[in-house]
């Protein structure tokens, strides 16, 4: 049997090359999408873990600010706490390169004279007497910084070269003091990691007197939890003493929605891939039913035949995996920038610098590819081995089963959907992942409806000669094969339409919000603002210049702090609120805008954004618990605003309140309102001239809108990739189905030919069938797509992101997508149609008839 297995495997490949290639491609694409997403997901967390590890090794505890950076006067307390063996003070600041503002250097300031894990490698600095010279210069040469050799090579730097970076409105010249391969000490460290002495980091790039983190190593035998508690008690509420694993958990938690979203999308393409395998197995069984019948008649048991078929599919899966992994990795590398930008823009986490492929990715790929293939083949294989061997030896018995159960299948699908709807009322709020469960049910139920739909459509299509109507009617003759193909296309279409609807709804909601809230004429921030956080501030002299411009009628400042609220880091904005009421616009979800404005002006109350409200279940009348230097304090919430700037949530207080809570601090953003009839671009030009060399980014009202949508599109770019993959898989499905149909109907086609049908008529018939498949898939898919969009907007989005999204779709876009799909279907039909049209009339002589 084993010998037969390998022999048949070879024959399979040589006889049905196109079938084989398509099946492998189906598995490969499914595997590829899972692999690419998994790699990106893993790396998004790894990026968070990597950076500091290069400097302080595996710390046992980490002291981080619960809100803003904390005072460095806490450091001696940490150092002096019993059980501490090493306490490494860190000041981190992201600065952007002056000649390439999109590129950020993650500068970590560390006490270079303290015992850190810092691998300053003396031998890497040729030309130095003993190789070590750099470290005392690190104290005295202004701007001394150690960078990675990889970055130095990228930028053409060598030791002693200088370059300019910006931190907030400050431009600082740094000098490459040493080349240190941090990645050799912590493989996940970024090439953009740079290290300087803490005094220089504080004074030149950040703020003197502050620390962002203290990494603590404990003496042997000390219980970390005991020391953690002691430290937390002694250091007070403004810092959080955590274990590294709990910090990673926090980041994982923060990213959960993002990662789940990606995983769900990749699962859909795997699902579609499985359909493809299902249909390709079906195809191969159809072609070989006589072979199976013969084997069975010769005494092979059902189990032997089943094992033979499953084994064959497992091989196919393995090849699919082998092909899919490189495609997936390639897709991941192509999209790393996009994901990285999302991580840094939206989640305030470290960027992914280079991809690491965890070993389990390969295991997952093998599991998904081979498992999926076997799972897809299990039913058809089992089905054919059950059959009476005699039935297998004759034609036209394959689809009887489906014809009979179509109604029952549809009923079961209907019941599933009904149950899902019913469950929506009960579990929608209580189970976070409910939306995904409903989505899955939908994707299972949709295919179940397919046979009935095909039957119904062919029933109502009148017989009208050798044309498109025949093509449609033909679809129901091969019900099982065509249903599977239509179902997989429908799923791909559902996904496309669902996600497109989500994106377009979201985009239009965002547009309305932007119109409501972006009121100022010019927005000014610094080039390092995106990543620089609190340190990317505007200095007083810059503010004075802005205020002093003749055309500036009013100025509004925003001070941002990252604070921990209800256990999650969120941006809290302190707004000066000195403008007339009419210039403020808070689109309110809860509360009255005017009253709320009065309240936050007059008291220590706050506005919170909708996602924060949903996540914390807090609303007007509740209060927000904030860690301040005075301890935990509660501030009344006077309004909940629509806010799409962060899914982590934001809160807004007056600048005065912020100063009371956290002390005076610099502002990071400024909005300028110009005198009437003033050209913002002209003012921007004048401000640039007045502040030469100051690394500010000026955005006019129009420009900032574009910026918002640029970030939006960037965030959803990865989704488009997955949509494309699913469509590709579905197109493979159409090709495959038509190839199967052509093969099954060799005799029938030969009959047509002998009755005088022209090749082009048969070609047309097959393209028509492809088009029919696509049309039915589109119909089902559109229904599914709307349902999926509903699930995404109304169930998944509130559970994970917490935005109100007003449904909005563009018919033009839908029509465009439909046309694309039809075009793809026609393209996918061409090859099978060509093959079918080449069936010679002589095939009629075969006994199949």
């Amino acid at each position, binding site marked *: 049997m084993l010998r037969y297995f390998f022999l048949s495997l070879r024959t399979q490949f040589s006889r049905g090359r196109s079938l084989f290639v398509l099946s492998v491609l189906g598995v490969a694409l499914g595997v590829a999408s899972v692999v690419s997403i998994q790699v990106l997901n893993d790396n998004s967390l790894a990026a968070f873990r990597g950076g500091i590890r290069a400097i302080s090794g595996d710390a046992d505890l980490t002291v981080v600010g619960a809100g803003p950076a904390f005072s460095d006067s806490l450091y001696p307390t940490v150092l002096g706490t019993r059980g501490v063996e090493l306490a490494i003070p860190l000041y981190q600041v992201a600065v952007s390169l002056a000649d390439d503002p999109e590129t950020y250097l993650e500068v970590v300031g560390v006490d270079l004279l303290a015992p850190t894990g810092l691998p300053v490698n003396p031998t890497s600095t040729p030309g130095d007497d003993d190789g070590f010279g750099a470290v005392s210069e690190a*104290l005295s040469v202004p701007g001394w910084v150690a960078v990675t050799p990889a970055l130095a090579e990228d930028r053409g730097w060598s030791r002693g070269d200088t370059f300019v970076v910006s931190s907030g409105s400050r431009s600082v010249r740094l000098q490459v003091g040493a080349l240190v391969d941090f990645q050799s000490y912590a493989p996940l460290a970024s090439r953009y990691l740079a290290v300087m002495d803490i005094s220089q980091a504080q004074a030149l790039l950040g703020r003197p007197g502050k620390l962002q983190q203290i990494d603590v190593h404990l003496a042997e035998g000390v219980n970390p939890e005991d020391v953690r508690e002691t430290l937390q008690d002694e250091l007070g509420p403004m810092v959080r003493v955590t274990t590294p694993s709990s910090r990673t958990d926090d980041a994982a938690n923060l990213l959960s929605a993002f990662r789940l979203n990606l995983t769900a999308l990749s699962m859909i393409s795997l699902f579609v891939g499985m359909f493809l395998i299902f249909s390709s197995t079906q195809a191969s069984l159809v072609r070989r039913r006589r072979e199976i019948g013969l084997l069975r008649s010769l005494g092979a048991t059902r189990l032997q035949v089943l094992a033979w078929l499953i084994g064959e599919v497992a091989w196919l899966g393995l090849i699919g995996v082998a092909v899919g992994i490189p495609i997936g990795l390639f897709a991941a590398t192509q999209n790393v920038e996009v994901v990285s930008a999302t991580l840094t823009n939206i989640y305030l986490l470290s960027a992914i610098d280079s991809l690491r492929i965890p070993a389990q990715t390969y295991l997952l790929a093998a599991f998904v590819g081979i498992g999926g293939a076997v799972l897809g083949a299990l039913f058809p294989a089992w089905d054919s081995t059950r059959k009476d061997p005699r039935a297998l030896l004759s034609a036209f018995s394959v689809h009887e089963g489906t014809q009979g159960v179509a109604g029952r299948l549809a009923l079961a699908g209907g019941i599933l959907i009904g149950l899902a709807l019913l469950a929506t009322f009960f579990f929608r709020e209580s189970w976070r992942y409910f939306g995904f469960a409903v989505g899955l049910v939908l994707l299972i139920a949709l295919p179940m409806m397919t046979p009935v739909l095909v039957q119904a459509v062919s029933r109502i299509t009148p017989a009208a000669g050798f044309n498109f109507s025949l093509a449609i009617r033909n679809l129901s003759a091969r019900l099982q094969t065509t249903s599977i193909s239509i179902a997989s296309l429908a799923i791909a279409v559902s996904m496309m339409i669902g996600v497109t609807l989500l994106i377009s709804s979201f985009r239009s909601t965002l547009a309305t919000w932007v119109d409501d809230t972006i009121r100022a004429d010019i927005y000014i921030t610094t080039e390092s603002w995106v990543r620089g956080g609190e340190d990317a501030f505007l200095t007083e002299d810059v503010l004075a210049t802005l205020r002093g411009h003749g055309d500036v009628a009013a100025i509004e400042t925003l001070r941002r702090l990252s604070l921990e609220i209800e256990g999650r880091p969120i941006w809290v904005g302190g707004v000066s609120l000195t403008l007339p009421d009419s210039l403020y616009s808070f689109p309110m979800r809860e509360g009255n805008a005017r009253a709320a404005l009065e309240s936050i002006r007059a008291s220590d109350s706050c506005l919170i954004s909708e996602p924060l409200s949903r996540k914390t279940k807090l609303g007007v009348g509740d209060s927000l618990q904030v860690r301040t230097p005075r301890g935990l304090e509660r501030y009344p919430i006077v309004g909940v605003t629509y806010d799409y700037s962060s899914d982590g949530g934001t809160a807004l207080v007056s600048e005065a309140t912020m100063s009371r809570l956290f002390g005076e601090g610099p502002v990071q953003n400024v909005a300028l309102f110009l005198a009437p009839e003033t050209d913002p671009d002209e003012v921007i030009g004048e401000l640039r001239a007045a502040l030469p060399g100051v690394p500010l980014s000026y955005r006019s009202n129009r420009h900032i809108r574009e910026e918002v949508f640029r970030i939006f599109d960037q965030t959803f770019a990865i989704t488009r990739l997955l949509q494309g993959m699913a469509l590709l898989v579905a197109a493979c499905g159409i090709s495959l189905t038509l190839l199967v149909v052509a093969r099954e109907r060799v005799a029938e086609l030969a009959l047509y030919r002998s009755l005088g049908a022209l090749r082009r008529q048969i070609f047309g018939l097959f393209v028509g069938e492809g088009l029919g498949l696509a049309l039915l898939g589109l119909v089902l898919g559109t229904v599914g797509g709307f349902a999926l969009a509903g699930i995404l907007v109304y169930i998944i989005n509130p559970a994970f992101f917490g935005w109100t999204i007003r449904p909005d779709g563009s018919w033009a876009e839908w029509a465009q997508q439909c046309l694309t799909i039809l075009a793809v279907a026609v393209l996918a039909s061409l090859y099978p149609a060509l093959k079918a049209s080449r069936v010679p009339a002589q095939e009629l002589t075969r006994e199949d008839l």
Partner: protein
Amino acid sequence: MKTFEFERDNRSGQRREIPHAFRPDLDRRNWRLVAVAFLLGIVAHVTTHPGLSETSPTPVSANGWKTAQPDFSWQFPRDHWAHDGYRTEWWYFTGHLESDSGRRFGYQFTVFKVGLVPGGDIDPSVQASEWHASGLWMGHASISDLDNGTHRFCEVLHREIPLLSGFGAYPDPRLAWARGPAGTADLWTLDWNGEAFDFQMADEGKGVRFDLKTRPRKPLVWQGPNGYSRKGSEPDAASLYYSFTRLETQGTLEIDGETFKVHGQSWMDKEFGSNQLTSGQVGWDWFSLQLDDGTELMLYSLRRADGTVDFARGTHIDADGTPTYLDSDDWSFQARREWKSPTSDIRYPLDWQIRLGSDRTLTVRPQRDNQENHALRTGQLSYWEGAVEVEENGKRVGVGYVELTGYGEGNRPPI
């Protein structure tokens, strides 16, 4: 002559291979490399730095540090305090203590002021940060429990910044202070008590703490004419060096939670300079011997890499405190055996025969062999610093302390 730190032959440009046991492993211990890095960096910096302002009253070497001068104008008590502009300055206490119950201890307590940037010229733009530093505060302390046979070494190393450590200014009695080693809340301090010094240290991790007060029984003595102590044939190879050779000492000592009231006798050296070890020298053997007849001997010998003596001097102090300066012709010494450290694998010569003049021979024996200090915080520098007994003609005639530096690879003090 005393010191710490580790060895690199900077001037020859040759790096010495660090023996494997000392090589930092590639994870969290890599800070050692850093320590080595910056300490060597000092020297590299020295060779490249343009030099200090020409208005400095004390001559400044080409590398920017002040150098020891024979006509240094001493002003006491001011000169017990720290001096800026020199690469290295230390206050070095060693002594023998006995508890009320008769348990005997040897101890060492040293504060080092280490200059990193000549002239301390940190750019004004960086001075906004309180972490800006041009020097280090380093403390070494050890306790040899002579009856129980244990030796514990403790160290602190901080940048010299108000948050972590500092050196006081006359007349503030606090000469120096630093936060303790990680895990220890208490400070290490050194104070002037009007006559001599009080000092305390603690190390929770090592289970050691002491708090000692001293009173001079003999006056301050110059180690060299006007305190100018030469270390080699080169003109600037010298330090400014004085001692209190007999300090009556009392206080408390705590080991593993057990507190002892102790009393005894200490020796204090104060030394500062910028070039105490010349390029051909790798380390030194140093003896401070307190003899029962009321006299003291201070002897040092600077070695070349091949183990031969490059430069040796000494001081004999009369019972009334009058010093007699000894030349290399006046004394010589020979070790009679070697001891191999189980920690560092370094072989140290022990059991010395010291010949004084033509008619006197002293035998100096360690009170226990293992009194090696292994300074993790300072690039794993190892040196031997231990309590000894002195015999003459088979009779015990005194006690003392011996320091052996620059043994083994990678242990040359870069001073």
